């Protein structure tokens, strides 16, 4: 009877453990599936806002336009249809506000009730005209032609330099500047954090006596517990003005400010992990070095650091990972300009900051909303790549130390 009860409890515990791990795994998988399904929507939706149309003269040979081309037209950077593969005919831009240039208020009638007909007429008369208007003004027997807009392609998404997700008439979903902004800021962060982090780790692992260590180590770990808004606030109050003053810039919100803040935030990761790696150096190996007449510095640089190298690399990569995903603090100090950065002294915008700043304004199901999910997918893939690299490096390390 006793034994039966014990077996039963064991089975129940086992079942609970199994269930919770299944639920966890499923949740993670579901999140990933959701993320990618929403993100993929970017490629199957017209870049023109719902409820609006782009129309041209019906004799215009152009069949489709990309959102980038449409932007060129409306920015008046392209003024002739021949540039886009059409006839040699200059482009006449038309927005609904321009209607007054063509018709009087009387002609349009009360409540613009003649608008659809007049638009139709207008499109028929002007061979080079392109018009952007709400589809409620689209006449039943429209004498122009509604242009098909091609969806954003994978290539445009990744290599497009323009991120104007709410631009009229056509949203621009190029994320290159955001990806580069993220990598740029993270790279800067690691360049700042690695030397300091490594120096601190070496100090903690090799030089500090146990009393200093017992004070310093918790302090470093405390750094990891500070909310990122606080870091952002600190950056905004101290670092941004300092950068502005030192480099004599119009604004201090720059990639550099982001890198410094992220560098500080990555320090605990880098210090803790590389200190652990340094500590795994066998005492016997250090003694062997000293016994051969090496001094402390030679021992550290020629034996301890090489031995801990894979751990230090892992620390650096995880530090980058921390920086890549950080949102709030970066949002506060980098200026958030979605342009490709050329120096550290320009404003940049990162992927997480973009998502955080824009998701609230993007209507659910909208192209903008989906593009933000697409950004989420990219972030996920970057982080995944980082984790795989770390896994690979530490796997290699376990193999060598087992020998």
């Amino acid at each position, binding site marked *: 009877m006793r034994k039966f009860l014990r077996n039963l409890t064991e089975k129940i515990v086992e079942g609970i453990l199994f269930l919770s791990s299944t639920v966890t795994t499923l949740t993670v998988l579901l999140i990933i599936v959701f993320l990618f399904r929403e993100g993929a929507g970017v490629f199957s939706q017209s870049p023109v806002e719902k409820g609006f149309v782009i129309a041209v003269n019906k004799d215009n040979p152009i069949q489709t336009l990309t959102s980038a081309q449409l932007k060129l037209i409306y920015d008046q950077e392209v003024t002739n249809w021949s540039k886009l593969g059409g006839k040699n005919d200059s482009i006449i831009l038309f927005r609904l506000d321009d209607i007054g240039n063509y018709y009087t208020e009387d002609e349009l009638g009360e409540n613009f009730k003649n608008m659809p007909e007049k638009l139709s007429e207008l499109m028929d008369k002007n061979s080079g005209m392109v018009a952007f208007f709400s589809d409620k003004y689209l006449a039943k027997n429209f004498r122009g032609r509604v242009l098909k807009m091609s969806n954003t392609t994978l290539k445009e998404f990744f290599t497009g330099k323009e991120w104007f997700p709410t631009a009229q008439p056509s949203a621009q979903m190029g994320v290159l500047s955001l990806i580069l902004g993220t990598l740029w800021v993270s790279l800067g962060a690691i360049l700042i954090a690695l030397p300091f982090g490594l120096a601190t780790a070496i100090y903690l692992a090799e030089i500090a006596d146990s009393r200093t260590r017992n004070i310093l180590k918790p302090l470093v770990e405390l750094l990891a517990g500070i909310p990122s808004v606080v870091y952002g606030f600190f950056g905004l109050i101290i670092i941004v003005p300092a950068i502005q003053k030192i480099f004599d810039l119009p604004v201090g919100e720059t990639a550099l400010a982001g890198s410094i803040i992220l560098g500080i935030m990555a320090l605990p990761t880098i210090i803790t992990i590389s200190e652990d790696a340094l500590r795994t150096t066998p005492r016997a190996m250090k*003694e062997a070095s000293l*016994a*051969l007449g090496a001094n402390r510095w030679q021992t550290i640089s020629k034996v301890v650091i*090489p031995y801990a190298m894979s751990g230090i690399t892992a620390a650096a990569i995880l530090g980058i990972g921390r920086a890549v995903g950080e949102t709030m603090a970066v949002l506060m100090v980098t200026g958030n300009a979605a342009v490709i950065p050329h120096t550290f002294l320009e404003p940049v915008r990162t992927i997480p900051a973009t998502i955080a700043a824009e998701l609230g304004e993007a209507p659910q199901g909208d192209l903008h909303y989906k593009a933000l999910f697409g950004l989420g997918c990219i972030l996920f893939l970057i982080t995944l790549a980082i984790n795989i690299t770390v896994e690979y490096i530490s796997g290699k390390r376990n193999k060598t130390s087992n020998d």
Partner: protein
Amino acid sequence: MNSIISTRFLNLYYNEFHALKGITMDIQPNTVAALIGPSGCGKSTFLRLFNRMNDLIDGVKITGDVLVNGKDIYADVLDVVELRRTVGMVFQKPNPFPKSIFENVAYGMRVNGITDNQYIAEKVEESLRQAALWDEVKDKLKKSAFEISGGQQQRLCIARALAIEPKILLMDEPASALDPISSAKIEELIWELKKDYTIMIVTHNLQQAGRVSDTTAFFYLGELVEYGDTKEIFTQPKDKKTQNYITGRFG
């Protein structure tokens, strides 16, 4: 007296713990001295006095004198790096560096400021030959030192110690982690090395002590109970404790 190593009324404390008690001992050049005794009696502690390895441990206090070549090695003016170049050490477990076989042997020369690559290459070969390892590794000098067997690693560590031409070699149970064949090779090596070096070796293997050493010191609970000619210690020990130990009655 022309002893190369001597201690006078030497005491060592690990904080409160009295680990070595009033030890006075002399070792002649070009001899092998074996240190034996039950576990925890202070053999390693004693051995590590001579290259000041105990300095690395917090709370160690030393009184009395330790002389190497007639010089007090705990004097303030002493250069520890210089001392460690004269007094090499081989540890109980093979502890090669995470470097190539070649670089392991070259390490001591490099950290001591030798930059002449031809000299280094010659010395590496010479040391590996001395350690009877050359033939086994000459084709894989660039390989990691972790890729050879434990016995080979231990001989590599010996070669590494020899490459900076010390006068004295301290060996702390150098063969305890090895198979009988590797162990025999190391014993042979000790015989060879005696011509050029003075050797102190800690061992738990009494047969080994009997085979390789000229003199033997028996330690018990931090005291040097008996020290003398190996043959005498093993055949007619003066102290009852020594006798019990070598006849295997305790320890």
